[in-house]
């Protein structure tokens, strides 16, 4: 573990379980010392980190994106075409869930329950209604077949990489720290995904047909990812976040390179109306939430 840097508020919190790399040895495996959601919860609780209302709303947005995607990807477990891919998708789902936990925990620091306590990640994940979710509509789109999931993941991973890469420079130290952890993981998601886009597009006639169909199904939801609004304008001016529209150029260039290599075209489809950031969702989110929330709502406070 490097010298703790107390100015950022992250280095001085014990990594708990295994104490980080300082305890590593040739025979002992440690979880490492990366930032965990529990660390953020502790910072929020002790007042070390407190988001502004704008930052909290923003963290809620990107946290919801990751949460909804984690729930979607988790559905592949035991259902993927091969055991190896099953675990790969499960890993990506867990990465997304980790990002969601961090962002939602941080967002909750500026939101209170009726009893005055700060909202926890669970309060936000399990006890909000559909119109209170701020995820964009791409993330809730159904898994479809494997190619459709790869198509969704193609857009998501390239978008999230550009987003998190820039958020590491955020003036908000916690957002920057979460992004720094997330960007490495999303970089791998990108790589994993590009491998599959190339293979499905260059595989059999059937796999290519499905890849093209998957991209056409997901592409209407691309535009919404890059829409600015008043909140992102304010945050961009403050340096806490970036304007979504500013990610578009790099996204188009990098996805374009993969599509060109796969000899695929950027789908020419009209954009969906969107509205996820204002709580307007496609018909799919309600069912997803029902499944995700049922246990916590049926047995409030239950632990397992």
């Amino acid at each position, binding site marked *: 573990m490097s010298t703790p840097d107390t100015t950022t508020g992250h280095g001085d919190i014990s990594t708990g379980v295994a104490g980080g790399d300082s305890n*590593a040895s*040739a025979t002992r*495996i*440690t979880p490492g010392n990366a930032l965990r959601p529990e660390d953020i919860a502790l910072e929020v609780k002790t007042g070390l980190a407190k988001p502004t209302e704008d930052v909290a709303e923003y963290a809620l947005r990107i946290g919801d994106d990751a949460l909804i995607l984690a729930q979607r990807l988790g559905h592949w477990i035991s259902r993927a075409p*091969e055991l*190896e*891919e099953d*675990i790969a998708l499960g890993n990506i789902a867990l990465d997304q869930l980790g990002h969601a936990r961090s962002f939602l925990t941080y967002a909750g620091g500026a939101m209170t329950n009726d009893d005055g306590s700060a909202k926890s990640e669970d309060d936000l994940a399990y006890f909000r209604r559909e119109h209170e979710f701020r995820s964009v509509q791409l993330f809730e789109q159904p898994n479809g077949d494997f190619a459709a999931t790869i198509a969704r993941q193609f857009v998501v991973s390239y978008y999230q990489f550009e987003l998190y890469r820039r958020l590491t420079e955020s003036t908000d130290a916690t957002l920057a720290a979460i992004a720094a952890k997330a960007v490495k993981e999303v970089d791998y998601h990108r790589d994993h995904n590009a491998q599959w886009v190339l293979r499905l597009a260059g595989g059999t006639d059937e796999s290519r047909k499905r890849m093209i169909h998957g991209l056409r199904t997901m592409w209407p939801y691309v535009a919404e990812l890059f829409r600015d609004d008043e909140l992102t304008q304010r945050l961009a001016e403050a340096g806490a976040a970036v304007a979504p529209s500013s990610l578009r150029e790099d996204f188009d260039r990098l996805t374009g390179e993969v599509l060109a290599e796969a000899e695929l075209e950027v789908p020419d489809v009209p954009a969906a109306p969107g509205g996820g950031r204002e709580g307007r969702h496609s018909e799919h989110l309600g069912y997803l939430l029902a499944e995700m929330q049922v246990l916590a709502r049926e047995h409030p406070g239950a632990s397992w």
Partner: protein
Amino acid sequence: MSPHGNPEAPASGAAEINREAPKASPAPEQSAPAEHHDRSAWGLWEVFVRSSRGLSHVHAGSLHAPDAAMALRNARDLYTRRNEGVSIWVVPADAIAASDPDSKGSFFESPQGKDYRHATYYTKSEGVKHL
């Protein structure tokens, strides 16, 4: 554990590094019609992982993958989930030439009893320094 073991039966030491390794059962040769999903189409790969403080790559287990690039990624996803490694090798299982388990006697028992192949067999001559 020896990398020269039978690739179809990974040494038990691998279980310590990896508790989720799939059983290395090579896909049986199937004579299913071509339009069916042919599971044997994905080859078997052996995975070697070097831990952050380890000097050598150690056999971790095996997996199925369509090609080397995907085998590396699958290995990353299957065998380094708990911070186990900093380097991975993947080798097509059929590229490994393995000794025959049935020839244990002729292959591995011959050195037994040949004490003179060990340094401890010899007595140090008087006056020899730094030995």
